[in-house]
């Protein structure tokens, strides 16, 4: 298990992904799954970096537990209450002219992870993803 505090800023994205990829490599997570988890982590961290702290900066705590069967990653921020899972899914059947890019990130997280849960705990937003393999 690893836990690390990051500044909630897009500049930290590479460090977040390095931490996660290091942990996944250590448990021989399959390449395809590693990519799915990285994409999911990027979407969630980018959301926190963009929206959690509109006034001033803040931090995000990332905790990762990986073994040879599953990975659980928990993202905690103390920003404004925000449950990204409440957002309606994008209509992916629309023709290109009517398609919008908003909401695709979280939609991909929901589709590729086995579990995605949101919890508001006191002043914290806690988003947890689980991927089995």
């Amino acid at each position, binding site marked *: 298990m690893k836990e690390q505090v990051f500044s909630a800023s897009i500049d930290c*994205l590479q460090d977040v992904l390095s931490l996660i990829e290091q942990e996944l490599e250590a448990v021989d997570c399959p390449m*395809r799954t590693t990519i799915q988890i990285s994409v999911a982590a990027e*979407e969630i961290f*980018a959301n926190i970096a963009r929206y959690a702290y509109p006034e001033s900066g803040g931090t995000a705590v990332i905790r990762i537990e990986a073994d040879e069967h599953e990975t659980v990653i928990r993202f905690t921020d103390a920003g404004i209450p925000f449950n990204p899972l409440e957002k309606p899914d994008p209509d992916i059947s629309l023709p290109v002219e009517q398609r919008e*890019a908003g909401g695709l*990130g979280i939609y*991909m997280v929901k589709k590729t992870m086995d579990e995605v849960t949101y919890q508001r705990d006191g002043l914290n937003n806690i988003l947890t993803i689980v991927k089995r393999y």
Partner: protein
Amino acid sequence: MEITKKKDGGALKIALEGRLDTSTAPSLEETLSKELSGVTDLEFDFAKLEYISSAGLRVLLSTQKIMKNQGTMKVKNVCPEIMEVFDITGFSEILTIE
């Protein structure tokens, strides 16, 4: 991410290498905003692209919308991992993938 571009009249070929994600998508967006004017035949080569996130999808979608009005756009050599992202998000229906 490495962006290699080749322009020949109205034809523009762009090869991407690495990751098209939140950190790198803005540089592709910038390249396209400079180069896209007058292009009627746009081709992306994804042979060396490993990874795409929603930030990358956003750029592809806005580019596809522009190209629909001025010519054609193709995406070539898509690896299975990225193809899966295109399938999940319905992008395999709106892009021309070869």
